[in-house]
């Protein structure tokens, strides 16, 4: 714990926010804030700055990280990171446009009105979050969220329907999402088919095929029906934090292969899936 005695009040309150003052100083500062309007407003400003900064820095994590850098780390030199950069996640950037405005408006109003309490930042968040979530998400965002949750499940709960080899999964998912497909055998890539799930992403049914490698990393192939006539087979790479995704469209369906961003062979895997599925 730091002694902040004699330091400017904003520095002391800042340390108070971080829990870096001792018990006696904490009580002293709380009493000061309770009786002094200026001190309270100062604390509100510091906390408003906190909220704004936290959100802004969170968005930095959605910037693209060169996948070639990832590969270089995994496999050693030979790839130039500058020659290849992952496509940025547009939906994440769309969120940027909305939340600061809502947050800024909320916080500015609270500050101008000299409102009380230490929950200004929290209030701003509460107002901003629902608007953003509804505005900008695509099916790939939903898939990334699903993957983040399901890939951490134990083997027992990893899939909805376990691998059986009797073709039931193909017929079930084909009829559910409206896309005929063959279950890709990815054993050549070191992946074992674990089973499948039926998901909902962007309001549409999505088939999810789950695989695991020897290290226990979970990979997923997801696909859903898209606009008729979409046959662009171009593969697009993107990252959502620690999850890498390679997506493409083919014959009226959209596909994505999902895996850990640390995997250096995801592109080869996606290529194999696109021909096998």
């Amino acid at each position, binding site marked *: 714990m730091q002694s902040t005695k004699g330091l400017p009040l904003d520095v002391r309150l800042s*340390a108070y926010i971080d829990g870096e003052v001792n018990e006696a100083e904490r009580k002293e500062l709380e009493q000061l804030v309770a009786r002094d309007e200026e001190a309270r407003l100062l604390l509100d400003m510091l906390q408003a700055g906190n909220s704004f900064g936290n959100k*802004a820095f969170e968005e930095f994590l959605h910037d693209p990280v060169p996948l070639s850098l*990832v590969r270089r780390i995994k496999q050693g030199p030979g790839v130039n990171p500058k020659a290849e950069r992952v496509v940025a996640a547009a939906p994440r950037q769309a969120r940027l*446009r909305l939340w600061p405005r809502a*947050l800024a408006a909320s916080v500015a109003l609270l500050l101008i009105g000299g409102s009380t309490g230490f929950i200004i930042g929290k209030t701003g968040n509460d107002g901003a979050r629902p608007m953003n979530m509804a505005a900008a998400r695509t099916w790939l965002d939903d898939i990334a969220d699903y993957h983040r949750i399901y890939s951490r499940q134990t083997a027992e709960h990893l899939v909805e329907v376990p691998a059986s080899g009797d073709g039931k999964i193909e017929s079930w998912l084909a009829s559910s999402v409206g896309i005929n497909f063959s279950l890709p055998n990815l054993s050549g890539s070191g992946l074992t088919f674990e089973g499948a799930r039926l998901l909902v992403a962007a309001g549409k049914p999505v088939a999810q095929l789950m695989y695991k490698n020897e290290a226990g990393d979970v990979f997923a192939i997801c696909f859903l029906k898209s606009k008729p006539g979409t046959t662009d087979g171009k593969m697009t790479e993107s990252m959502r*934090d620690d999850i890498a995704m390679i997506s493409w469209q083919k014959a009226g369906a959209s596909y994505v292969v999902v895996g850990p*961003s640390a995997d250096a062979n995801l592109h080869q895997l996606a290529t194999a899936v696109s021909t096998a599925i």
Partner: protein
Amino acid sequence: MRPAADSNEFRRDLVSVLPKLRRFAMTLTRNAADADDLVQEVCERAITRNHLWNGEGRLESWIYAMTRNLWIDEIRKRRVRTGSGTVDASEQDELSIEASGEKAVYANQLQKMILSMPEGLASVFLLVNVEGHSYREAADILKIPIGTVMSRLSTARMRLAAMITETTERRA
């Protein structure tokens, strides 16, 4: 020497902290191109020196300290070369983060605002407020006194609060 299996695990851990590492590098370099170069250099150095990582504490702290040291070296080299030091982010035309369209422009503006804070503020704010490092840890990573961490943190928060009003006015 660290066994090969451990080395692979280290590389894997390194990849998992890449987005965070890049963000931290951005607060030092204040532009994306330099941050990417710095991250690449740090990763290469970390891999060759991974036997020095004792596995205790947060890997980020070890990597961040290395990042900071390399960046200080780079600044010194540039000063020697140009005699003028680095260019402040607020003086640059645009952060070179790849993006397109109106949304991306706003993303750049916001990031530009954050990174245009006076040198040292963004790094301290990121370490303490966003990533939960203690004052002592932040001071160790950045090699600055705890008192400087405290004052920079307070200044950063006040600047960020002022940006809220700025952002609101700009978009009104």
